């Protein structure tokens, strides 16, 4: 199958991107400055991320759509205000996660942002669940640009006036350069920032404009170190079809009102796990010293019994040391529990620790 390219591919090339294949797309892993510089620039200034490979699914409908979606997602969508976003999951009956996503209530219905590797399957699953009652559009004509970091609000507001009035996890349509952009205050780096949905033919010029104002392009490599420092899950690593939101320690994302009555796919399993506790749980892990424990590293207790596995591990540039997340048996999940990580045949000490590794700088409310 031919590798897909986003509308910013030429711009990546002219900025000396190193490319990798990611979910069928040719995506920049880094630019000439490298992952650590790009990471630090995002934390101190403003980084631009091409996330156009992600799915932008528009579903159009009225209250009956809200009712149908509540049978799928563990959210109180009836009480979700227009232009407000929620983090959620598409699950199977066993509460295994098909995908994690952001859903926003818009005037015409809902906008759901899906992971690139999952979007086609998600579309199929949702089409089967919703039937033909609602118009669904997995929009390939729009690019998705994230701008993240403390200077992003100033930079973006100078191009799209009014975005500074958005609070975290809200969005709206804005007019800019004779077109409608959908902007949400959100992101996946642990920084204040925005995601902008823009038509493909305007995306390159828009990003060039952001660069002119002082933002810089950042690759997927730094995106990974940033989200891991922020303690955020990445589908295919922390999350997959064999893990539930309770095991992933994402119970906060399930609306309280939905836990009493259930009625969404996977609700029985989730209610049971909340009552009885899950046998394994996602935790933060800090290796001692400089050792990096990568995905699939086995975790042991001091009696040589395997008690879990790492799902992501790297060097955290802002915490200046190695960081990881993984799943451990429940009895080892308390903060400060001492564990051992097997790297290259040797066992190395590490501690279970609180997440995030790096404190978030989200803007909760404006004024």
């Amino acid at each position, binding site marked *: 199958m031919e590798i897909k390219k986003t509308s910013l591919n030429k711009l990546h090339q002219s900025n000396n991107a190193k490319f990798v294949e990611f979910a069928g797309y040719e995506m920049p892993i*880094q630019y000439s400055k490298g992952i*650590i510089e790009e990471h630090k620039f995002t934390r101190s200034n403003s980084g631009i991320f091409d996330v156009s490979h992600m799915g932008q699914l528009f579903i159009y409908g009225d209250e009956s759509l809200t009712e149908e979606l509540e049978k799928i997602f563990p959210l109180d969508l009836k009480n979700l205000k227009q232009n407000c976003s929620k983090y959620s999951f598409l699950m199977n009956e066993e509460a295994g996660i098909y995908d994690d996503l952001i859903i926003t209530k818009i005037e015409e219905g809902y906008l759901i942002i899906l992971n690139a590797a999952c979007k086609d399957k998600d579309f199929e699953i949702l089409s089967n669940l919703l039937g033909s009652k609602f118009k669904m559009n997995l929009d390939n004509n729009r690019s998705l640009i994230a701008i993240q970091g403390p200077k992003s609000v100033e930079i973006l507001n100078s191009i799209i006036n009014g975005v500074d009035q958005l609070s975290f996890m809200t969005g709206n349509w804005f007019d800019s350069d004779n077109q409608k952009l959908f902007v949400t205050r959100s992101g996946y780096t642990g920084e204040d920032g925005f995601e902008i949905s823009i038509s493909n033919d305007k995306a390159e010029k828009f990003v060039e404009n952001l660069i002119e104002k002082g933002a810089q392009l950042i690759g997927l490599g730094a995106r990974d170190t940033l989200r891991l420092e922020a303690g955020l899950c990445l589908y295919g690593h922390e999350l997959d079809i064999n893990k539930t939101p309770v095991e992933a320690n994402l119970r906060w994302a399930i609306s309280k009102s939905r836990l009493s009555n259930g009625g969404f796919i996977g609700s029985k399993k989730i209610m049971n796990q909340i009552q009885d506790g899950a046998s394994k749980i996602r935790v933060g892990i800090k290796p001692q010293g400089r050792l990096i424990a990568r995905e699939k590293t086995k975790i042991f207790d001091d009696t040589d019994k395997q008690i879990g596995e790492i799902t992501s591990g*790297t060097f955290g540039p802002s915490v200046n040391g190695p960081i990881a997340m993984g799943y451990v048996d429940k009895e080892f999940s308390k903060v400060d529990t001492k564990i051992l990580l097997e790297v290259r045949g040797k066992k190395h000490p590490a501690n279970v620790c609180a997440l995030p590794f790096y404190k978030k700088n989200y803007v909760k409310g404006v004024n």
Partner: protein
Amino acid sequence: MSEVKFSKEHEWIALEGDVATIGITKHATEMLGDIVFAELPEKGSNVEKDGTAGVVESTKAASDVYTPVSGEVVDTNQSIVDDPAKINEDPEGGAWFFKLKIKDTSELDTLMNKEEYDKFAKETSS
């Protein structure tokens, strides 16, 4: 100091008497990206030609470091363990990895000179 030689695994080796200083090439560091971890062989241990004699990790992945010749490890550079970023800054100078008392100088004959290595690096990276 004699001529610096290079291996296909992207190590450089400089011989002085019967002691060889070994590190990884600038080209290797450019492929790896930001290096954040280094592990060196034990002083006093013996390493075999083409065997692993250390590890470097970048933000992206771990890679073995091989020794291009056999010998006894007589010194290691702890400063790159304490500050792995030095490897990106000065890979073919101050950020050497280890020194070997080499067993068999004829093992050097199979290695490349600078010109050959530069050509090899260019061909294999595209």
